C-alpha cells in the first residue's frame, strides 16, 4: 500500500506490486527453478527451520502457485550490481553441461519492474493478522538452544509440508524427542512485555498435545500453564479429553528457567500448585507459546487510513460492543488479529461481520453522515492553516476560494471531534451541534444555577 486518498465510498488506493522476476502468466508452478537455483537461504515460512532457494514458491499451498525470485539473495542480481555483468541465470537456462534444463515455461524475467496499481474502493477491511513474538526476549528460557522453539515453529515441525516432512525431530540433532515441555504465557500476561492474554495459546497447546499423544503415545508431555483457559464452545471437553490421553498439565505460574545441560537435554524448572512444590524435569524439546503481537507496520497502515492503534499496538475498534469491526476512520473496517488476539472461529465471525458491514455501507450507493461535523466559513477564513495539521482524520484541505487558499472540511471525513473549531484563530469554523456559544451558554447556565 503506497498511498491512500479519499474517504468512505471514494478511496483511491495505490498499491505497489513488487517485481517478481518471473512472468506469472507463463509460470506453471512446476518448481523446477526452486530445485536448480544454487542459492540457499533460511525459509521464512518455516521460521528458518530449513532452507529455500532464491527462486522459490512461498509455500506449498500458495495461491496462485507461482515462483518468485528473491532479489537481494539472487546471484544474478548480486553479481549484476557488483560487476554490471549478468551471471548465474541457472533458473532460466539450466546447466547444459550437466544436462539440467532451466525453466520449461520460459517464465524467468530478470528485467521485471515494480508495478503500481491504482484501485478505487468504497470500503477497506484491514486484516493483516499477527506476528508471533520472538523467543529471543526470554533469556531465562535459553533461546540460543535450537531445541527451544516457539509454538509456531513446532506447528511447522508437525506439518506434513513442514521442514521435516511431518516427522517429529529435534532441530538440533534430528532425533525424536522423548520428553517435551510446553510453556504457556511466554510474553503474554507478563507485565514486562504484554499485559494481555493471547487467548489462543492454551487451546493450541492442547491441540499439539493431542496430536502428539495420538500419534506418539509413549512421548512424555508436560504442559506448563499459569492456569488453563478453555472458554469457548467444546473447549473444556477438548481439554478433558487431552488430559485423558496422558498429557500432564502443570499449573502454577510461570516456568522459572530452562537451562541447557551438557548431555544436550534441557532442564525445566517450575512450580506445581497441585503438588504445592517446585518441579524440575529434563526435556528433549521445549516449546514456548509466545505471545500474539500486532503485525509489523500496523501503525503505518493505520496512519494511512487514519485508523488508530490502541495501547498494545493493535488497531482499535470504535466500541468494543457496539462497533466491534469499525475503526475511527469511516469505511475502514478491521477483522482478525490486527484488532486483538483471537482464534480462528472468532476471526472468521469477525471477518464476515466486517464484510457485511462493508457491503451494507457501499451497496446503497449513498452514505448518511452525522450532522455533528465542522464547517468552514470561507469568507471568514484567514488562510492561517492552523487547522490543517491538527485534524486527526485529515479531513481539512487547502483549496482555492475567491483567489485565496482557504481551508475546506470534507464532511465525509470529518468525525466530529471539534478540534479544528476549538483551535481556529479566526473563529471561521463552526462545529454544528456544539458551537462555542452553545457550550458557553451551557457552562454559564450550570455555574449560575
Amino acid at each position, binding site marked *: 500500500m503506497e498511498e491512500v486518498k479519499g474517504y468512505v465510498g471514494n478511496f483511491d488506493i495505490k498499491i505497489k506490486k513488487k517485481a517478481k522476476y518471473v512472468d506469472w502468466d507463463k509460470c506453471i508452478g512446476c518448481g523446477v527453478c526452486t530445485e536448480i537455483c544454487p542459492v540457499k537461504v533460511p525459509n521464512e515460512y518455516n521460521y528458518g527451520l530449513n532452507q529455500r532457494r532464491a527462486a522459490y514458491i512461498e509455500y506449498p499451498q500458495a495461491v496462485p502457485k507461482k515462483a518468485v525470485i528473491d532479489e537481494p539473495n539472487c546471484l544474478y542480481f548480486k553479481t549484476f550490481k557488483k560487476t554490471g555483468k549478468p551471471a548465474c541465470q541457472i533458473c532460466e537456462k539450466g546447466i547444459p553441461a550437466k544436462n539440467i534444463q532451466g525453466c520449461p515455461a520460459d517464465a524467468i524475467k530478470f528485467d521485471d519492474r515494480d508495478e503500481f496499481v491504482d484501485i478505487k474502493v468504497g470500503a477497506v477491511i484491514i486484516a493483516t493478522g499477527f506476528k508471533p513474538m520472538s523467543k529471543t526476549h526470554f533469556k531465562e528460557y535459553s533461546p540460543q538452544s535450537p531445541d527451544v522453539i516457539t509454538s509456531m515453529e513446532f506447528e511447522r515441525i508437525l506439518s506434513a509440508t513442514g521442514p521435516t516432512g511431518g516427522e517429529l525431530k529435534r532441530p538440533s540433532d534430528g532425533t525424536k524427542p522423548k520428553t517435551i515441555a510446553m510453556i504457556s504465557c511466554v510474553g503474554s500476561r507478563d507485565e514486562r512485555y504484554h499485559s494481555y492474554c493471547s487467548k489462543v495459546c492454551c487451546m493450541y497447546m492442547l491441540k499439539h498435545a493431542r496430536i502428539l499423544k495420538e500419534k506418539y503415545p509413549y512421548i512424555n508431555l508436560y504442559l506448563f500453564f499459569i492456569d488453563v483457559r478453555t472458554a469457548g464452545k467444546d473447549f473444556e471437553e477438548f481439554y478433558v479429553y487431552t488430559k485423558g490421553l496422558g498429557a500432564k498439565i502443570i499449573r502454577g505460574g510461570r516456568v522459572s528457567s530452562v537451562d541447557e545441560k551438557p548431555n544436550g537435554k534441557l532442564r525445566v524448572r517450575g512450580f506445581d500448585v497441585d503438588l504445592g512444590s517446585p518441579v524440575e524435569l529434563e526435556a528433549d524439546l521445549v516449546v514456548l507459546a509466545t505471545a500474539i503481537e500486532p503485525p509489523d507496520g500496523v501503525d503505518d497502515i493505520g496512519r494511512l487510513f487514519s485508523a488508530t492503534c490502541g495501547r498494545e499496538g493493535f488497531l482499535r475498534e470504535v466500541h468494543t460492543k457496539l462497533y466491534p469491526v469499525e475503526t475511527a476512520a469511516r469505511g475502514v473496517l478491521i477483522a482478525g488479529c490486527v484488532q486483538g488476539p483471537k482464534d480462528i472461529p472468532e476471526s472468521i465471525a469477525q471477518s464476515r461481520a466486517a464484510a457485511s458491514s462493508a457491503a451494507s455501507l457501499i451497496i446503497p450507493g449513498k452514505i448518511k453522515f452525522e450532522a455533528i461535523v465542522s464547517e468552514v466559513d470561507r469568507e471568514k477564513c484567514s488562510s492561517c492553516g*492552523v487547522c490543517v495539521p491538527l485534524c486527526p482524520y485529515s479531513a481539512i484541505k*487547502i483549496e482555492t476560494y475567491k483567489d485565496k487558499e482557504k481551508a475546506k472540511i470534507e464532511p465525509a471525513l470529518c468525525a466530529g471531534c471539534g478540534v479544528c473549531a476549538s483551535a481556529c484563530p479566526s473563529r471561521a469554523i463552526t462545529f454544528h451541534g456544539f458551537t462555542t456559544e452553545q457550550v458557553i451558554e451551557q457552562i454559564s447556565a450550570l455555574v449560575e444555577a
Partner: protein
Amino acid sequence: MSKPKLAYYLAGGCGGCDIAVVDLSETLVDVALAVDIVFWAPTVADAKYKDLEAMPDGSIDVGLISGNIRNSEHEHIAKVLRKKCKVLIAFGICAATGGIKGLVNLYTTEQLLDKAYINTMSTDNPDKVIPQTSFVLDGKYDLTLPTLMDARTLDQVVPVEYYIGGCPPHYDHVKAAFTALLSGQLPPPGSWITMGKALCEVCGRNPVLQGKPKKLATTVKRTIEGTPTEGACLLEEGYLCLGPITQGDCGVKCPNANIPCRGCGGPIPGVKDFGLRAISAVASMIEDEKLIDQIPDPVHNFYRYNLPGSTLGKKVKR
C-alpha cells in the same frame, strides 16, 4: 451642511495613536478641512476639559478615544465624551482591548506604586511618599489627583460604536478608517473598522497562501535565538508569531522584519478573548506538548495587548 465635528481624547495611552493620525500628513490636511476638530486633548489642540463639558450633549459627530481607562479622570472624560458624541470609537489597541499599559492588571496599585516610588535601588525616598488623591499643603493649598484603578478597556466604561486596532494603528489603516467615517460607509455598530482577517492572510511568509500546508513547530525559540529562514513562516520555525490570531491591517511590518507578531492589531471579529485564542492557536501549532513548558513568559507573550479586555481581565490579587 455644516462640517462633521470631531473630538479626540487621549486617555491612558502614550500618544502614539495621535501620532498615527498626524502621520496621515497631506491626507490629514484634507481631513482637517473636511471636519471641525472641536476637542483634541491633551496632545494636539488647546482644548480644556471644562470647554468639553460645556458643549451640548450629542453635539459632536465622532469621538475618538485612545488609551485605556486607568484612573478616575479618564473615566470621567470618557463618560463626558459619550454624552457629547453621536459615535464613539475606541482608537488603537489600548482603548479597544487594554494595550501594553493594561499589563498593570497583573499587580495591585500598591505594588506598582511601591516599585515606582519606594522600592528601587535608585530611589531616594526615605519618607516613603507616594502620590495621594488629595493633599493639603501648608494647611491651605488643596491639591487633588485622580484615583488610580485597574486598567479597563473603553467599552468596559461606556458603550462604544467602533474599534480600531494597532499599537499604533498604521497610517494606511487610519486613512482607510477616516475615509470610511467621512463617507459614512460604516459597518454595523459594535464592529471593528478593519479588514477583519488575520495577518496570515496578507503575510508573504504564510505557506498556506502558496498552497502548502503549515507544518507544526518542533521547537520553541525566543526572538534572539537564531535567524529565521528567509520567507519561512515564523510560527513553523518556533518563533510563536501571533499572526494567525491578529488582524492584519498593519501591513505585516513585524514578520517582514523577522520579528514575530505579538498581537497589537487586536482580535479577529468574533473573538472575544485574544489571549485565550492565542494560547489555543499556539498550542495547536506545537508538535509536542512538552514544548509548552519552553514558551517564554506566556502572560506577556499572549496578553501583551489585551489583558484588561480578556475574560479574566486581571490577576486575582489577595
